[in-house]
């Protein structure tokens, strides 16, 4: 059977899993995009012309049919099978209950999962009263599900339906990063249900093993406050497993319309930033891309800046540090046209730093950058790219490796 189409979006993502689990259960052939780059591939003009909300996953059928929304896609994939009723329901009542749980999962549950995890992972600012309100709501919905699941193996009827697939996928990030063993005991029916689901062959085939949260992610240290005393250097070795970088799963957002920038009135420059970004993306950084940059760099039209986080001693887990960079970059959205940079997460768990370099249009830090909510948490220092030491640092920074980095590189993010 030829594939019915392609599910476009990052493959390690619980929204992406839904349609693939459906395809697996019903034997529908569905293509995926394992090399999808979040924040890049869903920001191109071509993508946004087709899918204006800029969110992923989206679906493009072999016949050209275009669809957005992970749950709508999962439903459509199911509808392509002659056995669709197995997952979509046999009667009006089953179909309605399946929709009921799907809407509950999408409009009630999912916003609270995102609402709890985004501030903890540093994607949005951590504001305690707002966090507590959403946390309370999240627990309330878990309580509701716990009641509903008291005497049920599956949500609707006596077998797996798409409602189970969607609810389970929407719960996954909470079980992985938020719900501790104590919480799981409290919501034992939900936990039993979740474990049963993720152990079904179709779930396992798509998601692999789901490891339940051992220690809840803690909010990043508040950025704008007096520095705390340095933690004692001798920290008890944490027995926990090595945590993988947590990807935040809110469907990625489209840029909003940009107001006219002052930078548009600067004299023309010989180097188009887009050309650099393209060359950087498509070539080895060292030596090819860097040679291109030094050859084409317009020192009149651009400036280099060293960027360092002001509160390195408050950083904890490496993956959280890296998420903090991602959060900062998403708030730099307005600067996308005028800036390029790399910020790296250097060091190890509980002892790491954010360090990197930016190229920006003009000789000053533009308003598009200073306007970002957490701009003040970073030190921006003008850098002289003609100085050999600085130049070596820039090269290694953009390459994410090399002797000029102040510490070993764990991960990083490119702002382009």
């Amino acid at each position: 059977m030829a594939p019915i189409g392609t599910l476009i979006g990052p493959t390690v993502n619980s929204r992406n899993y839904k349609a693939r689990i459906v395809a697996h259960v019903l034997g529908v052939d569905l293509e995926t995009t394992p090399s999808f780059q979040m924040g890049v591939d869903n920001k191109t003009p071509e993508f946004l012309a087709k899918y204006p909300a800029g969110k992923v996953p989206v679906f493009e059928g072999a016949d050209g049919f275009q669809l957005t929304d992970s749950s709508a896609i999962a439903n459509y994939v199911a509808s392509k099978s002659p056995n669709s009723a197995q997952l979509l329901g046999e009667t009006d009542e089953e179909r309605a209950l399946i929709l009921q749980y799907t809407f509950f999962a999408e409009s009630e549950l999912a916003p609270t999962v995102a609402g709890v995890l985004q501030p903890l992972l540093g994607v949005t600012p951590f504001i305690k009263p707002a966090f507590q309100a959403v946390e309370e709501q999240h627990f309330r919905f878990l309580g509701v599900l716990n009641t509903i699941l008291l005497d049920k193996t599956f949500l609707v009827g006596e077998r797996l339906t798409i409602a189970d697939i969607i609810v389970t996928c929407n719960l996954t990030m909470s079980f992985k990063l938020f719900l501790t063993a104590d919480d799981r005991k409290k919501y034992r029916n939900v936990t039993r249900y979740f474990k049963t689901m993720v152990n079904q062959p179709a779930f396992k085939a798509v998601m692999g093993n789901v490891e339940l949260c051992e220690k809840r992610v803690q909010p990043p240290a508040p950025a704008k406050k007096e520095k705390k005393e340095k933690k004692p250097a001798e920290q008890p070795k944490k027995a926990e497993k090595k945590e993988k970088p947590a990807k935040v799963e809110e469907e990625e957002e489209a840029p909003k319309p940009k107001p006219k920038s002052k930078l548009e009135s600067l004299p023309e420059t010989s180097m188009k930033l887009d050309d650099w970004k393209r060359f950087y993306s498509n070539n080895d950084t060292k030596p090819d891309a860097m040679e291109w940059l030094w050859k084409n760099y317009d020192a009149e039209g651009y400036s280099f800046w060293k960027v360092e986080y002001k509160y390195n001693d408050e950083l904890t887990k490496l993956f959280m540090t890296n998420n903090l960079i991602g959060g900062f970059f998403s708030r730099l959205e307005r600067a996308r046209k005028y800036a390029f940079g790399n910020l790296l997460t250097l060091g190890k768990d509980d002892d790491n730093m954010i360090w990197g370099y930016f190229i920006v249009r003009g000789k000053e830090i533009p308003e598009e950058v200073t306007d970002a909510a957490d701009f003040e948490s970073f030190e921006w220092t003008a850098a002289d790219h003609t100085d050999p030491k600085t130049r070596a640092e820039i090269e290694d920074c953009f390459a994410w490796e090399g002797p000029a980095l102040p510490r070993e590189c764990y991960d990083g993010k490119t702002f382009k």
Partner: protein
Amino acid sequence: MSTIGTQIGPSNIRTYKAMIVARIMGIDLASMSSFELGVDNKTPEFLAKYPVGKVPVFEGADGFMLFDSAAISFYLAMQSPDSGRLLGHTNQERAKILQYSFFAESELMSAATKVLHVFFGFIPLVQPTFKTAEDELARFLGALDTLVGEKTFLVGDRMTLADIDVACDLTVIYENYLLAEDRAKYNNLTRYLTDMINQPAFKEVIGEVVYCVKRPEGSPPTRH
């Protein structure tokens, strides 16, 4: 035709959805003459049947119980022999209708609620959070404005459940939040909504919709 069941909940955009569906499909849907929000949906009997505690809910003449306004309106539409008219005739139409309904319920409404609940005083104004919600809402309205474009209806050439869901959700945003200058930013969408609320079924259920002239008291100042 005897009644199919009762929709339980106060009169608001969430109950309107099923009422508009019933009106279009000629289905006899009973409603509660009086419902006290925060009281009638908090009784132990209510919560035993509908643990989420949210309204509206549906109780069929046959005892079938359902919660969630969008799910209820889908269920009602299914009860008509002509259900394809609102729910779509092909897999692709059905999928598109779901796409818009999920978008309206989970993206648009979740952003709108975060903004409107501050206006209504349900949640405190926390500035960075509020600004994020406002930006998000603006982005979703912008995306919808693009999607609507020159279209009269969201899916195909006639009104579907997607239009009922989306238009009902937009109504609350247009009544309470979007001022004339905001509405001008979403020309396609404003035109689309104005068409919808003037459809006979909408008019009969919702009545006259008055777009926002002044935001509710205690609203945070608009940023420009």
